[in-house]
């Protein structure tokens, strides 16, 4: 372990807030989905918050991020304002993608957030290219690429790991292993279920980490990022986690027993971290109240912002199909 993490109380509370903020935002999204304010597919991150919050605090503004269709957590943790995210879900022009992307395709150029990608495995080659661009331009940034364990089943995963390792590119691969690719259990899809071992086959240093432990994720991410920045080539982090909610809003969850979900609920990253903070005297009752009030206020403003949004004029439908110039 090269980078020892020393987090002060303020930083620990920031991790807690980061996770609670994602959880509360998505709870509101689910509610708005029922109210038919949000439509299409909505993939919630409930249970996996420690992964994006833990990894993102290790990244710098010059790094690029590639995520999946379950990317609200990454988007918020990366600093995309909640209001433009909510507006995007509402499908209005004030949304970060002017209503063209929706929940599954969040982009933010300023924060180098290069998309939620809804083709499983489709984002990995992009991350390799973003890292290649950084290297060829002599920039210090790396590309952090989030994907689920289902992506491991795709050829693009293997092609991308090989290429990144072969060219020693600055990529941080983050596998969010939540055990189910939609309804397909890992052990029903993979002959080798130890995912981080697959990275080793490409000579990529890899680590499996408890993805329900935000501090463990943060520490592992810092170590991995430090190695990538030192020019050691790509790193691979397997974060073992669990999706507590359905795959999307249309999922009867026939593929897993209710008791399994309940058992994991008790091991959830927020309840666990909060208990730990509490037990160590790091969480004062007033902290919790303040955090929750701040989050509630932010969500309220985000909903109001989205509600006040305006539809993108249909005359603009074809705009950006072809670009007139490369954005500066």
């Amino acid at each position, binding site marked *: 372990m090269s980078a020892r993490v020393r987090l002060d109380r303020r930083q620990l509370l920031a991790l807690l807030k980061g996770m609670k903020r994602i959880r509360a935002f998505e709870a509101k999204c689910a509610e708005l989905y029922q109210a038919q304010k949000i439509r299409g597919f909505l993939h919630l991150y409930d249970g996996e918050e420690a992964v994006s919050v833990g990894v993102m605090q290790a990244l710098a503004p010059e790094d690029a991020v590639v995520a999946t269709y379950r990317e609200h957590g990454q988007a918020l943790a990366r600093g995309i304002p909640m209001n433009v995210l909510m507006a995007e879900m509402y499908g209005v022009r004030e949304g*970060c993608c002017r209503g063209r992307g929706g929940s599954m395709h969040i982009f933010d150029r300023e924060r180098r957030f290069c998309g939620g990608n809804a083709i499983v495995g489709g984002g990995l080659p992009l991350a390799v290219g973003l890292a290649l*661009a950084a290297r060829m331009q002599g920039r210090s940034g790396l590309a952090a690429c989030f994907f689920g364990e289902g992506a491991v089943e795709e050829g*693009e995963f293997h092609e*991308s790991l090989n290429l990144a390792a072969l060219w020693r590119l600055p990529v941080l691969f983050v596998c969010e292993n939540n055990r189910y690719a939609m309804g397909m259990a890992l052990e029903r899809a993979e002959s080798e279920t130890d995912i981080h071992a697959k990275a080793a086959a490409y000579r990529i240093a890899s680590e499996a980490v408890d993805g329900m432990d935000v501090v463990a994720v943060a520490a592992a991410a810092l170590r991995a990022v430090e190695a990538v920045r030192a020019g050691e080539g790509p790193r691979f982090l397997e974060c073992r986690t669990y999706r507590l909610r359905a795959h999307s809003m249309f999922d009867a969850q026939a593929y897993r027993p209710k008791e399994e979900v309940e058992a994991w609920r008790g091991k959830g990253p927020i309840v666990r971290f909060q208990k730990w903070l509490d037990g160590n005297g790091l969480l004062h009752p007033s902290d919790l109240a303040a955090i929750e009030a701040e989050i509630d206020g932010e969500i309220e403003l985000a909903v109001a912002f989205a509600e006040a949004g305006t539809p993108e004029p249909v005359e603009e439908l074809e705009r950006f199909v072809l670009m007139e110039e*490369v954005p500066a």
Partner: protein
Amino acid sequence: MSGPQRLTYREACRQAMREAILDDPRVFLMGEDVARYGGCYAVTKGLAEELGEERVRDTPLSESAFVGAGIGAAMDGMRPIVEIMTVNFSLLALDQLVNNAATIPHMSGGQFAVPLVVRMATGAGRQLAAQHSHSLEGWYAHVPGLKIVAPATVEDARFMLKAALADPNPVLIFEHVMLYNMEGTIPDGTASVRLEGAKVRREGGDVSLVTYGGSLFKTLDAAEALAAENIAAEVIDLRSLRPLDMATVLASVAKTHRLVVVDEGWRSGSLSAEIAARVAEEAFFELDAPPARVCSREVPVPYAAHLEQACLPQPDAIAAAARALVRPS
């Protein structure tokens, strides 16, 4: 440039890439065997030795990864040229081309552009059978967000790349395999061409022959044969398959009132169908005869030379189709 320059299509492609890499530090080339081997069709021969393997990169046989890497690099300031050996292999990268390159600019609300160039060989004629000989550029021309071009002349092979690299959108360049050895002359002083816009390659008033890529010279041969029968065929080289320059096609049809589309792709659901449909929609009353098409036979292209040739549009068939419109029996 001083004086007209005579060179092969292959050499024109190579010069174009060399110039682009030398002129712009953002440009680099990557693909299978482009560096040490010199390209499967020897198009990139010598480039890696001169320009270095950082700018001319051999890739593993991972079409999806290196095309996707090209997209990622293009999103972040580079101007990659990705070579795919043949259009058949590009199907292994279809996800990246159709789901990422074509969608990201629009899906991101214009925040990201993908100024990527992908070159690939297309077409039949070298007895390479069904997994190296198909003409699938029409499929790609179906997809909004992509630009599709098919240089048919040495001049276009020399200068379309520059125009493609200057374009902020993903551009797919289709090079017909039978053109690489073709020699041509670049007129004195030519330094650029437009990426888009069809060109009238031969003027005539009796029938419009609309084609592109590897079929252009077969169509010009057909026009020459027709001229001997006092049929003046106008030959239009589409150059760009998406967007289509229908104005040039329609102007020609308004003059000749007869249309033959020549396309090495299969007939069903093809680019030729699209052109015929648009002419029917937009210039129905200009037509003195139904639009005709000369396409490839609907079989996987076979190995044996006589079978392969029987698949493809040939000058005789093109001339016969035109003749039937001009002088119906």
